[in-house]
């Protein structure tokens, strides 16, 4: 089976620090493909092109709420709806590793692919007038000038809590496949049959289950809970030297 590179994002670990966002932007705005537009970055109404966003959702009703930080980027669908609609062939899915890419030299900026993506993963660059999206750092992961440990997407390298895993989801022994299998990895909006390659790991609470009889010491000879009376200072002690 062919390769399908993807990210697995652990929502149980993500702290919403946006390090993946800034690292992604820094790497991808500095590459050969050209800058990623930023307008009014330090003024009113800042806007710009990003491949990756971290959003925050509150689940539940106060006081029983959980905060879910939710990083969102292109999911590199196995059946990407954005690719067949492209009139120029600028949007394509690589056969060798399953990465969905845009050829910026062919894109005419008609935005039809953005309409065809249910996840809103594509953003038009307001200055280059072409559609942009996550490339899975295709210019990084195959760069043999980098040490092998660094041949990972910039977001994965930046994550301080290792909430982002990177690998081949078609290889059952890869770290991502194991994480999906063992930790209940799931895909977003499965109702559209896009089969996203990226998966998310759910929030997991660590809980201990106590039964009523476990709250009482069964080996308590006096059937009394609480502190025992302090022994007399002259009384023999366990180690024969101190009593208290």
């Amino acid at each position, binding site marked *: 089976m062919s390769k399908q590179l993807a990210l697995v994002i652990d929502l149980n670990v993500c702290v919403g620090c946006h390090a993946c966002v800034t690292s992604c932007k820094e790497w991808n705005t500095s590459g050969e493909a050209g800058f990623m537009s930023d307008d009014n970055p330090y003024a009113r109404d800042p806007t710009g092109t990003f491949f990756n966003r971290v*959003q925050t959702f509150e689940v539940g009703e106060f006081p029983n709420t959980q905060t879910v930080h939710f990083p969102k980027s292109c999911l590199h669908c196995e059946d990407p709806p954005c690719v067949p609609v492209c009139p120029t062939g600028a949007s394509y899915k690589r056969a060798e590793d399953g990465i969905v890419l845009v050829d910026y030299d062919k894109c005419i900026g*008609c935005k039809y692919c953005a309409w065809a993506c249910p996840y809103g993963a594509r953003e038009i660059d307001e200055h280059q007038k072409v559609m942009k999206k996550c490339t899975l750092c295709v210019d990084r992961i195959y760069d043999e000038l980098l040490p092998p440990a660094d041949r990972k997407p910039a977001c994965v390298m930046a994550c301080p809590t290792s909430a982002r895993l990177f690998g081949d989801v078609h290889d059952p022994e890869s770290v991502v496949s194991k994480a999906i299998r063992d930790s209940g990895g799931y895909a977003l909006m499965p109702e559209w049959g896009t089969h996203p390659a990226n998966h998310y790991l759910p929030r997991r609470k660590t809980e201990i289950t106590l039964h009523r009889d476990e709250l009482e010491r069964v080996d308590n000879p006096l059937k009394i809970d609480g502190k025992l009376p302090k022994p007399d200072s002259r009384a023999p002690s366990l180690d024969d030297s101190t009593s208290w």
Partner: protein
Amino acid sequence: MRPAFSVIFLTTLIGAGQGLFVALYSAEYGASLGLWAMPSAQYFSLGCVLVLALLGAGLAASFFHLGRPERAWRSASMWRTSWLSREVIVLPVFMAAVAAFGLVHHLRGAGDLTLALGGAGVVLALLLFVCTGMIYACLPFLQEWHTPLTVINYLLLGCTSGFLLSTAWAAAQAPALLVTAAAWTAGATLAALVMRGAALARNARLRPKSTVQTAIGVKHPRIAQKAQGFMGGSFNTRDFFHGKSISWLRLVKWGFLLLVFPLPLALLAAGAALVSWPILAAAFALQYLGLLAERWYFFAQARHPQNLYYQAIS
């Protein structure tokens, strides 16, 4: 979705052009069967100029939709998979057929050649309606568009508009055709009213398949967005929200229902009775305004699932 005016003008203008061409060809076909006298060569040749003007204006409008219009030629390449690419191919071929049909009428008059050329043109006009409609109907998660009614309505509304223009054209150039053209226009308008009404009724009862629960994959009935990742706007917040109130949407809906169907029908009856092309032309112009509103509403009504990720700034 935020309605794109370039696409609104493209689809309404070429729709009127296609409808008018179908009407021109029907006039020749009916005459060749002996149903009525053959209209003058000028009726066809100048009529084709009118069709080409509408199609050309639509084509020009479409370029304003592109970020990189100088690369527009590339969009013909993916016709195997993309309805947009198919539209890009069929539109100029249809224009060529219209030009050839008009030119042969001008040079040699009606005959077997014009019947054949016009027949090909009508097939291309219908194909173009299918391509235009399928661009929207083929996207499954835009549930308001993902229905055969989308294609049917592009066809019927285009024919309504073009047929209405053909009545004004007949009143000016071939008054003998006027009653038949008016009858066909009324029929097309009523059919379009039924089908557009059906689409409105269907969409009013749609339940979105995607929810914020499926969007982030958390099973809980109460999920509220607290941050979308940025404070300013982005492409996602600009291009997928129409930003108008519900009451404005309702106003546009009733506005287009009034402007596209009953008002032009009343003017059509008056114009046909008086054989007055200015009244019929005014009916066409009024209905065209309504069609602009109809197309605006068509886009604004579609709720894109990506909007689930952009419910709150912070």
